[in-house]
């Protein structure tokens, strides 16, 4: 039996988590290749639509990651993102999406190690959880 390789989509902010991902790369840290990074200017611009689209197109997990509270380049975008994630985490389970598929983390620009660890942890969590409920066999 082959091991399930989940597909993860990460919306990472330009100023913190994307920079942390860069740092993880230059530091040659190893983390799973299951993640696809989408660089956004701020987590505050991640419309719920982006997350829904990723889920419906078969992503098994979605990570939204930005600056620590108080560190947002745009002062408060991450606080707004947190409210949107709160909303999605309330709505999506009603329709059978496991809440663990959606994660919000704060990873600062110097946290390359945390970035690599987070990706590892999320990959393992989603691997254990299994494929997205809205699988590709679904005709939508």
């Amino acid at each position, binding site marked *: 039996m082959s091991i399930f390789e989940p597909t993860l989509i990460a919306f990472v902010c330009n100023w913190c988590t994307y920079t942390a991902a860069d740092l993880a790369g230059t530091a040659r840290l190893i983390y799973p290749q299951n993640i696809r990074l989408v660089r956004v200017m701020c987590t505050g611009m991640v419309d*719920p*639509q982006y997350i*829904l*689209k990723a889920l*419906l197109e078969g992503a098994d997990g979605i990570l939204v990651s930005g600056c620590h*509270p*108080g560190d947002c380049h745009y002062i*408060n975008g991450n*606080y*707004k993102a*947190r*409210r*949107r*994630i*709160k*909303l*999605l*985490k*309330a*709505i999506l389970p*009603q*329709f*059978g*999406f496991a*809440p*663990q598929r959606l*994660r*919000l*983390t*704060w990873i600062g620009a110097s946290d390359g190690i945390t970035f690599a660890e*987070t990706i590892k*942890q*999320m990959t393992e*969590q989603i691997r254990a959880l299994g494929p997205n*409920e*809205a699988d*590709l*066999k*679904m*005709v*939508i």
Partner: protein
Amino acid sequence: MTTTVPINVTDHNIADALRRLLRALFESGQIQALLAPTLGHDRTTIMPALIHDPEQIDRVMAISPAFAVNSAKLAARLTRKSPGIRLAAVLRPCELRAFIELAKLKQACREDIIVISIDCPGAYSNRIWAEKTAQTDAVSLTEHFIDQALAGHDDPDLSTACRICIEPVAEQADIRINLFAQNAANQIPAISQTPAGQQALDAIPPADAADCHLSGNFESELIARRQAERDRTLQATGKAVDHPHQLAAYLNRCVNCYNCRVACPVCYCRECVFVTDVFDYEPAQYINRATRRGAVRMPTDTLFYHLTRLTHIGLSCVGCGQCANACPNDIPLAELFIMTAETAQNEFDYRAGRRLDEALPLSVFNKDEFTDVVGMQDPEVNP
């Protein structure tokens, strides 16, 4: 201080009694224009009209079980900038709640309009209204409907949204017409609830003084019956959509006409993303999607569209049910949206349209809130 003006009803003609109040408001100069449901020349349809000539009040049907559109958007059009005239509107409680949401979104101005709201016994879908008015004329159908409602008989033909509505009274209106008062079949109290409403009611000549019996048990009993129906309905809906495959099946009759979005009073975007170039796919994109999945449903993005709307307006949904009313394929959208709205609004301790000074949940934040959604742990899953 509130002002209560009793409106005498003769021969069960509540519509006419309300016309007298509206005329008095015009004659006293308190209002110069009125947005109100109005009987069409076909004597069958009731649509909102903006009335400037008091003679046209003859056609106003302030209360009826016709609910063709949610007037919140129309009232918003009239108050987007100052109308420069003393403007009033007869709005159902759910219409007023939607209007308040639009005011919070800066698409309407609550101060520019005097809202008169009648305790709401509910309404039929457009389809049922058309069927019934093919048999009976709109005026006698309405009289019969109100008689039955005030006698405490729940009409099984009401739209789903109305059958499960637990907010049939508008506490936020300037003037509340207390149809649920004890003796409403003979005398309806018009009650001011704001300074603007009080000023308007104080200016009209007092009717024959009489005791007004304000809401007794009628209101609480009605809400209790509706709550029970709501619990049953939403539980069934929750079961029907508890998996993405199930939700897709629930919505599979959708033809992407987007009528629900047009009819929705709180779908606030000036231009919807679903009609922009973003969704104007190249043929190759369809082929790619079909190739990847084996098959792709056409028209595409139906589930995506509805989920997007649920998340975008779930926090502002007032449960008016116009989405279901507008659906050409009878998809039970009202209960889906009401269920999701309740979940979403509970998370933020918010009620759409409850108060003008209650900020939209996504327009504000606190620094130390909702830390439970941050991080890699789910308390309920990974102890």
